Each structure stands twice: as structure tokens, then as C-alpha cells.
């Protein structure tokens, strides 16, 4: 098994910072994630980004409470751009700002 793969698994597990392949559209669809795991998964994914990278969050409602949590925990360190706003699906590009 590739050690790099283990590294990414650890990264997701341990909330470590790091980077993965570039030039791809990263989409995190949280509609299938159990409610209590949604925000931790989103933050772990965010922390795995390198500065300047982003992912698109997909949800079935407006993730406003998440934004408030980002503002509290990572002020000035994230970007938030709505790509689609309902009525069935919300898409938000969340980016990691440079240090």
C-alpha cells in the first residue's frame, strides 16, 4: 500500500495540515454525512487544504451556522462564496486564505 495514501488518511483523521493533488474540482457533499459529523468533517477538509486551495461544499440547506463557526474559529483565514442557493441544493466555495 502506498505510504502517501496512509498519510492522507492520517491527515483526515488527525486534523493535520497538508496538501493533495491540484487542479481538480474538489466537492464535499455533506448530505450523506451523519449530522454530528458534518462540521468536524468540513473543518478537517478545510485544514487539509494548502493556502489558496478550495473545495465546494454541497448541502441540502443554507449552511449559515457553519459560516458563523468559521468566522469564530478561523477569522480572516477562509473565503466563502455561494455558487448555488437552493431550493434543493446549496453550493458554497470555501477557500483557505494565505497566511
Amino acid at each position, binding site marked *: 500500500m502506498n505510504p502517501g495514501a*496512509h498519510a492522507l488518511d492520517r491527515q*483526515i483523521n488527525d486534523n493535520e495540515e497538508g496538501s493533495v493533488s491540484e487542479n481538480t474540482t*474538489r466537492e*464535499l457533499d455533506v448530505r*450523506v454525512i*451523519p449530522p454530528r459529523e458534518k462540521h468536524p468533517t468540513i473543518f478537517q477538509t478545510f485544514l487539509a487544504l494548502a493556502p489558496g486551495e478550495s473545495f465546494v461544499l454541497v448541502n441540502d440547506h443554507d449552511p449559515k451556522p457553519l459560516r458563523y463557526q468559521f468566522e469564530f474559529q478561523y477569522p480572516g483565514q477562509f473565503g466563502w462564496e455561494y455558487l448555488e442557493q437552493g431550493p434543493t441544493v446549496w453550493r458554497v466555495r470555501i477557500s483557505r486564505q494565505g497566511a
Partner: protein
Amino acid sequence: MRLTLSSAAAPDASFDDLLAACTRRGFAAVELEAGHAHGVSPSVGLEAASAAAERAARAGIGIAALRLDDVASVTDPRTPRLAAALGAPVVVRIDGDVASTVRAAAPLFAEAGATLLLACSGDVDEIGRLRGWIEAAPTGALGLAWDVTPGDSQIRVPAAVLEAAAGHIRHIRLHGGGPETMGQEGLGVGRLMSALALSGYTGTLALAPSDPRFRYAWGAWLGRRGGWGCGSKTGSDTVVIESRVEER
């Protein structure tokens, strides 16, 4: 990534009712399992398959895959032609020694401009074996599908599975999600979704019940009320795709 509804979640729903359920719940595509009431199967004529693909496109829903139980059917030349008419890959589960079957099917799929996806459980050794078949076949003829069961050992190391697959995974079936989401805490779904996002996975992720006993819950979640559709329709006319066996 395109979130997809498997017909396994509503095996008694017609094709159009599946499309309507996708629209209601925000699914981008539908996975069709042969033998369900949508009526799409290897015995369907190419015109009917093309018409189904057009109806799906008009509804804004993609056809993610046609899933077959019978591995032997992939060497029937009608199967890759059907896949091409649907504009979707065929998925078969790889169990036992089917190397010769897959070897025979690959050129047929290549000739039809279609893809056969080999579904596995995510075991990295098995993926290594299947990668060998894929890379020896004509380009685009074969690919991988991953059947994921929350709580199993593979979902705990999703990045390792994706790394082993080297970009060949085009379709994932997740057993759960939908009305089962609440009960799948701690089973690795979050890790899987995060790994898929970080790897830039652009394929389909189909949700299917983890157990037939959840079908009632799935039906309710998808909007089934007595019957499918607006509620006034009975189940008697659910098969809407004309079944016609083509001449070889």
C-alpha cells in the same frame, strides 16, 4: 462528484418516478439496477434505451450506470450497445474467477464506445488485480466501481483505496445515506466524503439501502405516498420502458 440515487432504494418505482424522486431530493443522476420496475435491462431495445436517456436528460438527471447481476451478460454484444445508447457504463460485481469473461467483454465495450465498470469492495489487493485488467484493455473499455459498506475496513482508509485505484474509480455505491444517515455515525462516511473531496473525485456516488428492511423508510424519504408520483398512481403500470429483444 455527482450524488446519485440507486433504483435499489425504490425498486418498484417507474423510470419517470425515479427521475421525479431525484429532482425532489436534489440527486444529479440515477443508478439503474436491472430487474427493477424502471424496466431498463439488457433485453430492452436500443431505441427505448435512447428514449430513456433523452427523458432523463430532459429532466436534468444523468444516468450514472446500469447495474447487472449476471456477469456473463457482459459478453453479449447487446449489453455494450445498450450502455452506449444509455450513455452510461455497465457495472457488474466481480466475484470469483471471471478474468476470461472480462477479457472477452473488453473489446466489445471498446467497439461500442461504452465502459464496463468492475465493482469491488475496496480491498487494495483486489484493486491491484483489477487495475491490471483495466490497464491491459483498450483505453476506456474498463474501469472500477467501489461498493462501500459503512463500518467496513476499507471505508476507514479511503485515501488508501483511492490511491490504489489510481483514478480508475468512476462509480461508487454507498450503502446508506438518505434516511439511514442518522444511524451511520462513526462508521466512516465523513472520512470517505472528505477523502473523495480532497482527491478531486468527479465520478458518481450512488446511495442505496444498506438492507432491504429500510426500503419503506427510503420510499417515504423519496416521497412515496401509497404509490409513486403525485400519489394518485397505482403500482400496476410502473414498467414504462418497452421490453424488446433485439436481433443479434
